[in-house]
C-alpha cells in the first residue's frame, strides 16, 4: 500500500522576462530558500531532491548535477525528470512517488527555467521527429494554433471567447505577487494585437519567463507533525500520447482520460460541484476555454458559455487559474509545478489576494508535447 502524502510548503521566485541579476543555480536557490522558510525547515531536513527543466532550451544538461548547489542536493539522493511542458507535474509526481513508496519522508521538488537564455521555439521543435515533423513545426505556438482552429471550427466559437479568457487571466494575475504579466487588458486589445499564428494573437499566448518553483512533499506522519494544514495528494495521474503530431487523435484527449482516472481515485463524481478551484495549464487562451470540457466542468463546446457567464472567474462557482495561469507566467520547467504549488496554497489558505474562500478540493494540470497531460487532485482532508 502506498503511504499518504501531502504538500507542506512551497516557494516561488517573482517570475519575470529576464533575471539579469542571478545565474541558474542562484535563481533555483531563491525558490528553495522560500520553500524551506515556508516549511520552517532547513536543507538538512530534506531527504531527497527531484528536479527538472527543459534541458535543450538553455543547452545546459544534467540539471541535477549542474544546479546541485542551488537545489541543495549535494550529498543527497537527486533525480532529474524532464518531460517537456509537463516537467513540473512530472517532478511533482516523482516527489510524490518518493514519499508514497515509503523510501523517503521529506522530498523537495524543483522546476525551473531561464527562458531568456534560450530560443524557446527552436528548442521545442527539437523535441519532435527530426526526419518527418521538424520541417513544418512552429514550436508550441504552431501546434496549439492548429488545435485552436479545429476547436473553434468544430464548436462554432469565436476568437472573442479566447480574448475574454486572456483578459480574465491577466486580471487574476494582478493578485499574484509571483506572476509575470499583469496587464489591464480589454477584449479589443487582445483582438487587435498581432496574429502570430491563426487563430492565436500575441496577447492570447503565454510569455517566456525566468523563474523557479520549489515544493516540499512529506509522508503522512511527517506532514502531520510539520504542518498545521497540509494539502493532501488525492490523485496523480499521467497520460502520454503518440509522438507524431499527425498521430494525435484530438477526440481521444489525454487530459480527459487522466481526469476521469483521477476523479475515480479521489472519489469525485460531480467535478463541477466538488472541485473548489482549478489551476489549469493553459499555454494559450483558447486552452482555458477548450480544456475545461475535458475536465467535465462543462459539456463539449460549452467553454465559451462559462467565459460569457463568469462561472470560471474569481467570483464564479468554479474559479480557474486565480494565479493568472500559464498565459500570465511561463518559466516552462517550473510552469506545471507552479500549478500544483498554487493548488496547494489554495488548500492551505495561503494564497493571499488570490485565495478562493474556503477552498477544500483543488485540481491542477500539466500539459506538454505531444499533447500529453497530468492531473493532480489535492484536498484538505485524507
Amino acid at each position, binding site marked *: 500500500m502506498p503511504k499518504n502524502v501531502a504538500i507542506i510548503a512551497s516557494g516561488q521566485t517573482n517570475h519575470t522576462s529576464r533575471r*539579469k*541579476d542571478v545565474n541558474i543555480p542562484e535563481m533555483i536557490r531563491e525558490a528553495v530558500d522560500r520553500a524551506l522558510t515556508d516549511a520552517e525547515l532547513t536543507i538538512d531536513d530534506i531527504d531527497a531532491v527531484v528536479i527538472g527543466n527543459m534541458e535543450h532550451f538553455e*543547452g545546459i544538461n544534467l540539471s541535477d548535477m549542474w544546479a546541485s548547489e542551488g537545489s541543495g542536493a549535494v550529498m543527497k539522493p537527486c533525480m532529474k525528470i524532464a518531460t517537456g511542458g509537463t516537467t513540473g507535474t512530472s517532478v511533482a509526481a516523482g516527489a510524490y512517488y518518493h514519499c508514497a513508496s515509503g523510501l523517503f519522508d521529506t522530498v523537495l521538488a524543483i522546476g525551473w527555467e531561464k527562458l531568456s537564455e534560450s*530560443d524557446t*521555439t*527552436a528548442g521545442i*521543435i*527539437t523535441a519532435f521527429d*527530426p*526526419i*518527418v*515533423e*521538424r*520541417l*513544418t*513545426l*512552429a*514550436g508550441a*505556438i*504552431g501546434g496549439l*494554433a*492548429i*488545435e485552436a*482552429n*479545429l476547436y473553434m*471550427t468544430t464548436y462554432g466559437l469565436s476568437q472573442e471567447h479566447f480574448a475574454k479568457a486572456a483578459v480574465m487571466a491577466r486580471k487574476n494575475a494582478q493578485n499574484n505577487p509571483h506572476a509575470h504579466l499583469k496587464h489591464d487588458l480589454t477584449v479589443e486589445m487582445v483582438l487587435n494585437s*498581432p*496574429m*502570430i*499564428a*491563426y*487563430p*492565436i494573437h500575441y496577447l492570447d499566448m503565454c510569455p517566456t519567463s525566468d523563474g523557479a518553483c520549489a515544493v516540499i512533499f512529506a509522508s503522512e506522519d511527517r506532514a502531520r507533525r510539520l504542518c498545521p494544514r497540509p494539502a493532501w495528494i488525492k490523485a496523480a495521474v499521467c497520460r502520454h500520447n*503518440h509522438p*507524431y*503530431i*499527425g*498521430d494525435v487523435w484530438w477526440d481521444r484527449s489525454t487530459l480527459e482520460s487522466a481526469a476521469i482516472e483521477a476523479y475515480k481515485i479521489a472519489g469525485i463524481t460531480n467535478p463541477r460541484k466538488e472541485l473548489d478551484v482549478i489551476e489549469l495549464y493553459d499555454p494559450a487562451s483558447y486552452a482555458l476555454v477548450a480544456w475545461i470540457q475535458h475536465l467535465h466542468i462543462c459539456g463539449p463546446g460549452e467553454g465559451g458559455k462559462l467565459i460569457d457567464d463568469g462561472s470560471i472567474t474569481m467570483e464564479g462557482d468554479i474559479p480557474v487559474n486565480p494565479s493568472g495561469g500559464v498565459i500570465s507566467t511561463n518559466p516552462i520547467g517550473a510552469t506545471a509545478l507552479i500549478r500544483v504549488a498554487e493548488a496547494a496554497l489554495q488548500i492551505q489558505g495561503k494564497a493571499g489576494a488570490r485565495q478562493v474562500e474556503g477552498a477544500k478540493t483543488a485540481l491542477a494540470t500539466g500539459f506538454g508535447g505531444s499533447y500529453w497531460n497530468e492531473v493532480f487532485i489535492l484536498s484538505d482532508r485524507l
Partner: protein
Amino acid sequence: MNQEPLEKPLYINLHARLPYAYSAGRYVSRFLIALRDECKILATKCERCSIVLTPPRLVCNQCYGPMKEFVEVGPQGRLATFSVINFPFIDPFTGVERPVPYGYAIIQLDGCSNRFPHFLRETDLSRLRIGQRVQAVFKPDGERTGAVTDISHFEIIEP
C-alpha cells in the same frame, strides 16, 4: 574591495555548431526513397486492425500489431486543420530564420488513417477552410533528395 551590487551583470554569448546524423531506419528510409524516386507517399498497414499509418513503422499505434504491408496514400487529401504562421523564429533545421508567413497544414491523406503535417502554399485565410481538398506538389526531377522536403508543399485544389 568594492562590495556594491553590480549595475550591469555580464551576459556571455556562446554560438555552438552541433552537427547531428540521424538513422531513418528501414521503414522511413523506404518512405523517403519512394518520395525521391517515384513521387509516392508510402504508409504501412496493420496486419491485425487494418489501420494505415504514415510515416511507415514497424508497430501499429492503436493495437501494437505488426505493420508489414506498404501501401500508397495520397497524394490528395483534405485539410484536417491548419494555421498560418506569422511570427519569425530560428529554424533548427537550417539555423536561420524560417520565412513567414507560411501555411501549416495537417492533412488527412486519401487512404490514410492518421494525418500528415506539411506546408500549405495558400496563406490567405479567406481562401482556407477545414475539410478543403488539397494535393501534394513534388519538387521536379533532379531536385529531390530523399527528404520530406521532396514534397515542396500542398496546394488547394477546390475553392
